[in-house]
């Protein structure tokens, strides 16, 4: 039976296809139902639908400015969709405020693009922050948990270091540890590979997969790094030009003939995403002022 590209990836039976579109399925941790996202008049993504289940590693890919980070902000409730419903853990997050939103957020973890570590705290205290804020663990229990998490990312012996003493790759791993220290059910990684050297990239990718398998959580990778994410993702969603362009397993996407997908995966300079910035009346006016031809 050919896979249905109607917004949800489904390998197997029609029965499973029925189940996929039901957001009250307890396995579906995050669901976007015909969501339109934008800022004011500027629409970033239109009529988007996707679902993410527990235990999945999902890669959300697209070029710069394609709306990946916007998608994540909608999922964490930091941005309200202009249309459609965003559901997290089976609950609609749209318009939810206060205590309800807080309790949902406590079940999520987020790794920000540049780490967003708290610069006035050292490595240990950064990872301990969510525990100190939300749990009543004793100091001993807290220390044990933090060191255990740091150990999982290979930085247990760096717990005492100040942030100024660690490298960018290490900082990213500390941020990862902080994102997962409370064992969340849904973790977002915003550009986890950006700006890392090849070794750090490989380490980070393997860490993400390992943590996901160990915690049984759903991991959403927001990235444009094809090689690393394809190596660890179960499902890939490709967004661009304001819509969902393609989705499927890495293998399926690799075989796709869609020109946008091909340009993205092959890294071709020109294609559906044009190389040349389009000429606008503003530019023509400026060119005339400068005395040059458009």
């Amino acid at each position, binding site marked *: 039976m050919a896979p249905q590209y109607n917004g949800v990836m489904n390998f197997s039976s029609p029965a499973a296809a029925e189940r996929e579109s039901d957001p009250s399925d307890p396995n579906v941790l995050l669901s976007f139902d015909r969501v339109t996202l934008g800022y004011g008049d500027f629409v970033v993504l239109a009529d988007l639908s996707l679902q993410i289940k527990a235990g999945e590693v999902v890669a959300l890919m697209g070029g710069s400015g394609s709306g990946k980070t916007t998608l994540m902000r909608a999922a*964490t409730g*930091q941005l309200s969709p202009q249309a459609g419903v965003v559901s997290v853990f089976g609950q609609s997050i749209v318009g939810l405020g206060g205590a309800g*939103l*807080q*309790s949902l*957020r*406590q079940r*999520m973890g*987020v790794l*920000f*693009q*540049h780490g*967003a*570590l*708290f*610069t006035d705290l050292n490595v240990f205290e950064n990872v301990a*922050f*969510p525990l100190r*804020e*939300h749990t009543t663990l004793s100091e001993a229990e807290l220390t044990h948990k933090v060191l255990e998490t740091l150990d999982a990312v290979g930085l247990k012996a760096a717990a005492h270091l100040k942030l100024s003493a660690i490298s960018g790759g290490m900082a990213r791993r500390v941020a990862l540890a902080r994102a997962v220290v409370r064992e969340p059910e849904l973790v977002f990684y915003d550009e986890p590979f950006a700006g890392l050297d090849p070794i750090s990239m490989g380490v980070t990718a393997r860490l993400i997969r390992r943590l996901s398998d160990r915690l049984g959580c759903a991991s959403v990778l927001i990235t444009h790094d094809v090689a690393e994410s394809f190596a660890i993702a179960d499902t890939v969603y490709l967004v661009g030009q304001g819509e969902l362009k393609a989705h499927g397993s890495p293998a399926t996407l690799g075989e796709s003939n869609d020109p946008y997908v091909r340009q993205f995966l092959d890294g071709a300079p020109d294609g559906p995403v044009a190389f040349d910035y389009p000429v606008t009346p503003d530019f023509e006016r400026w060119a005339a002022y400068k005395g040059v031809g458009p």
Partner: protein
Amino acid sequence: MNALAAVGRFTLEKLVVLGQLARFFGMLVTRLGIVVKRPRLVIQQVHFIGNYSLLIILVSGLFVGFVLGLQGYYTLNRYGSEEALGLLVALSLVRELGPVVTALLFAGRAGTSLTAEIGLMKAGEQLSAMEVMAVDPIRRVLVPRFLGGIIAMPILAAVFSMMGILGGWFVGVILIGIDTGAFWSQMQNGVDVFNDVLNGVIKSVVFGVAVTLIALFEGWHCRPTPEGVSRATTRTVVAGSLVVLGLDFVLTAIMFSH
């Protein structure tokens, strides 16, 4: 016609900022409970804001006292009233210079560092990170700093006044040779605890609220770029200083007119 439109637009912009400031103040006031649940946060901020300002306040207070003593002596000497120097120095400091100069120094030292800190936290997405971790950044970051500033200001102003009086005493009695008994007794006869000292303390609390509020507001709303932070710190000092001077006029008129 363009000039009129410009003035109108300018006034409108200022009104909008005033409204935002009032709303910001409301946000802080409704979350003051944090001081009961996490007093450590407030204590830490009192340390960063107060203790780290102590050196400049002590030295400035001392030198302002020196100058008051010197200039006061030169002026009083012409009317044969040098013995009133203690009274002159004390009243000038307790009523005006203590609260006002401390507030101006506070805006420059503590205000700018608060603005820059909040602005940089915003730029580094730290505040966003707290939000998604279900930690209210206003409660966790802003309110402790707000309370820290309000607690630190009156203490700093009192210390400034004390250092100034001692400085004036040093210049007047030790260096120039005015009678120490006259210096203190004239002062004690003329400085009223309720009218002068208490009013000075009230002034410093009001200034503390104003300057800290403006500093946090600018940091919270600044653009998360180096230029944005730089502009915001400038606005903190300028707006904070002007507001202090304006409030001083209003408070003085209310408190000290008989």
